[in-house]
């Protein structure tokens, strides 16, 4: 059995039309007939009863779970840490450079410095776009907060870990690493390096096969 019992009511009206009239609020095809026809009125009453709970359900106020926003944003922040992109704005469009690209440029730059045998690490976005670099936000532990803000911009902070040859002046090597990373990033990506944090994590003998 279907909601639309037959092709035609005894009066000739099409039940499907009456159903549409109820479910979609369309105007009756023949209002004068409908008002006086018992078949039409019975069918309409029937459909009306059928469709009332649908309307009621549609009118129910539905609210998203209270903690949904919070858990979505927690995941978004997590993603931002792992997958941010630096963004360069240009009138013709924007250029996004993935974090791993900046990281790779920084690593290769560091490894091109004499006496640096290995470089690990990556970068992160320094400050929101259109904002001057604020050392308080990017240096030290607060740098984490800058990452947590997750705002992509054209400024990056690079954290790099290097292993240097045994016997070289570490602070001098670190200074060259800093300069070269900033220069390579500017040259290759157009991004501004706000800060390069160098962590010397190992020393190696120059011919140790590292």
């Amino acid at each position, binding site marked *: 059995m279907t*909601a639309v019992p037959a092709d035609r009511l005894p009066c000739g009206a099409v039940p499907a039309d009456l159903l549409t009239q109820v479910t*979609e609020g369309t105007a009756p095809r023949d209002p004068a007939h409908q008002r006086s026809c018992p078949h039409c009125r019975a069918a309409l009453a029937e459909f009306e009863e*059928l469709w009332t709970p649908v309307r*009621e359900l549609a009118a129910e106020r539905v609210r998203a779970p209270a903690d949904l926003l919070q858990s979505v944003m927690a995941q978004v922040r997590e993603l*931002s840490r792992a997958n941010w992109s630096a963004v360069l704005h240009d009138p013709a469009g924007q250029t996004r450079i993935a974090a791993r690209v900046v990281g790779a440029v920084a690593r290769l730059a560091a490894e091109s410095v004499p006496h640096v045998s290995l470089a690990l690490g990556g970068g992160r976005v320094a400050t929101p776009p259109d904002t001057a670099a604020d050392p308080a936000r990017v240096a030290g532990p607060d740098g984490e907060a800058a990452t947590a803000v997750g705002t992509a911009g054209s400024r990056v902070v690079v954290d790099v870990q290097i292993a240097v040859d045994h016997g070289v002046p570490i602070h001098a090597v670190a200074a060259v690493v800093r300069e070269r990373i900033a220069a390579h990033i500017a040259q290759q990506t157009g991004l501004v390096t706000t800060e390069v944090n160098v962590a010397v994590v190992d020393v190696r003998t120059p011919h140790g096969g590292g």
Partner: protein
Amino acid sequence: MSGSTVDADRPADPLEARWVDLARAGDEQAFAALVRSHQDRLYAVALRMTGDRDDARDVLQETLIQAWRHLPGFRGEAGFSTWATRILINRCHNAHRARRPVGPLPEDDTAADMPRTPAAETLAVAAHRREAVRHALRALPLDQRAPLVLTTFGGYTHAETGRILGISESAAKVRAHRARRALADVLQEWR
């Protein structure tokens, strides 16, 4: 949610356009603002599509994360709501495919324990009937359920529904119409 005259596709109010721009550039707070202003409507669609609160929550959460990840590719040709709803519907399809078969609809035994006073009985009957609609919705195939949920329950116009489903406005109208017929048939069958 129905009866809302808000056109989710109007060329976006300037504030929302600004939020989208900022979020696209990675601004989480702007994205949070977008989520806050659309989550109820999206959840309503998810709830009617899945018929289950937990599933609706899961699918909406996945949708929003996907929206965040794909925002750079969102060109703003449709409203954010339309775009996010499209992701949502696709995810419902995928979830459905992964989980099939759904199995028989549970027997509804709520009416048996309902109080007997006339007023309560009326309320119980009404609640029971809405429950039947929920079940009937789940009994519809997804390609019918989606246009029905979007129009009748989501308050989207046929044009918006078409954009969400990637079909023309007239196709959306036909599908929504057929889906209403199908829902009425199921409800009639269950009386």
